[in-house]
């Protein structure tokens, strides 16, 4: 199915958490809209992420067996939200779905999707250490790539690089 059919199916099935759909649009001089190119995605409420993903995985028509990617993005320092980005793939139907969740930076926590897809476990660990997101119910919340005592969350836009680490200069 193409993206529109998937979005249609999701809204018809009244899946919990589905908020809106973000499609590419051309720039519009009248409204001073710079436009949005690229590929479309659905916007999902982070609190209902587990139910949403469970539906995507178990539904016959959608059949998203594979979680391809789970990551986050800090769009800018001024933006009050952090984006959680998920990519799903259906092997038998040969289609993809992009999902975006907005997490307020003041309340950076959402349920862990490890119960739905085991692949989420390592991706969520990386998000936790890089962005400071808390995934509730994660079975193994250790640091993934950074040392266990690394200060701060590197991938945030307001991150200050440390001057030194255990006496080693980072200049």
């Amino acid at each position, binding site marked *: 199915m193409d993206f529109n059919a998937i979005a249609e199916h999701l809204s018809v099935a009244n899946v919990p958490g589905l908020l809106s759909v973000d499609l590419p649009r051309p720039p519009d001089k009248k409204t001073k809209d710079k436009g949005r*190119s690229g590929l479309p995605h659905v916007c999902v409420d982070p609190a209902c992420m587990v139910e949403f993903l469970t539906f995507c995985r178990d539904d016959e028509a959608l059949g998203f067996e*594979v979680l*391809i990617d789970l990551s986050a993005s800090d769009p800018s320092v001024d933006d009050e939200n952090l984006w959680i980005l998920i990519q799903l793939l259906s092997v038998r139907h040969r289609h993809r779905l992009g999902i975006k969740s907005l997490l307020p930076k003041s309340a950076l926590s959402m349920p862990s999707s490890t119960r739905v897809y085991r692949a989420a476990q390592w991706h969520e660990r990386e998000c936790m250490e*890089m962005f400071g997101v808390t995934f509730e119910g994660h079975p*193994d919340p250790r640091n993934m790539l950074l040392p266990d005592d690394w200060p701060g969350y590197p991938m945030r836009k307001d991150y200050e690089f440390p001057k030194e680490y255990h006496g080693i200069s980072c200049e």
Partner: protein
Amino acid sequence: MTSPTETSATEDEHKPSIRPADEVRILASGEREFFMDVATSDLEINMGPQHPATHGVMRVLLRTDGELVTGAQPHLGYLHRCAEKIGESVEWLQYLPYTDRYDYLSAMNNNLSYSLAVEALMPELEIPRRGTMIRMICAELNRIASHLVAFGTYGLDIGAFTPFFYAFREREWIQALFEKICGARLTYSYIRIGGVFNDTPPGWLREVADFCDVFEGKWQEYYDLLIENHIFVQRTANVGVITAEMAYDFGLTGPMLRGSGVDFDLRRDMPYLEYGQAHDAGAFGVPLGTGEKGTLGDCWDRTQVRMKEMIECLGIVRWCLEQIEPGPIIGNVPRVIKVPPGEAYVGIENPRGELGHYLHSDGGKIATRCRVRAPSFVNLAVLEDLMPGSLLADAVAIIGATDIVVGETDR
């Protein structure tokens, strides 16, 4: 068998693990273990970060009971070079050399993935056909080179020292070809946004055709020497079995998925460049694991899929050589690229699985977010569940069949 939580909790405590008297273990051969009520503790041994078999700087903390592995915990980050953070501070084209360096064995495919993602954000950009054809040839030759390394180093891990040299002989030829076309042997930065940056030198296409002819004969030798060798089959069949459900759950892609019998290849099923047309013309097929030597989804199947993929790559290269015509090689790309605002995720078939880039642009010269979905990172997670229950020698075989490149695991 210890779950990951138990391993992490008791990793720092050196308490002996006393098994309850009524817990009986079934060994890999199916026999019940003869159990004596003696308190012993499992040996915690560190595999890596410097170890010949971990394919790079990676640490796997193993808990073993004699030769039987009872727990495994990969520790990454030794090669973390902050590629994603750098993506947010350099211009679009300046990021290209960084893409070479995650999976340094298949740099062409990395460049391709990134370029396709940027081009998805620039819909008006047209890629000329000659550029597409050269991209396909280079990507497929790089796939052969990468699989040759996988084959050679897997032989080394298993103890066969000679196939490594033979594989590298062919790989040297490919690297010489790449050196002629772009000047580099390992990290090319050749496939750029809009096409490729350098046209083929005279005689290059003829040499690629010669390579294809020579390689087919050599391939059969390597297959018979190592893959069909009885000792190799005994070491890899029935070892590290990944079922299709497990592969889906762990997000595995590429030969890891196809080795478990799942018929899915991004080049054929969600085609990019002109792979769709190549497949329709019968240029290549998709080899799958069959479980003929042991169980479906064991290490032998995955290795066999990689070997057979090399032959399919030759088909694609030959098709491109027929189809290629003179013309421009790069589209109308400005010197400093400004990508229109938007977001896109594009995933392609890397030799190791699906390599995807998620790019977010706000209209400027520099990306706002450059996320790399690295196949080796995702494929490695399966080790935590595969290793317990196998022997130490099998642990090496499993890591080798996963074919990870630590540059990609850590980025």
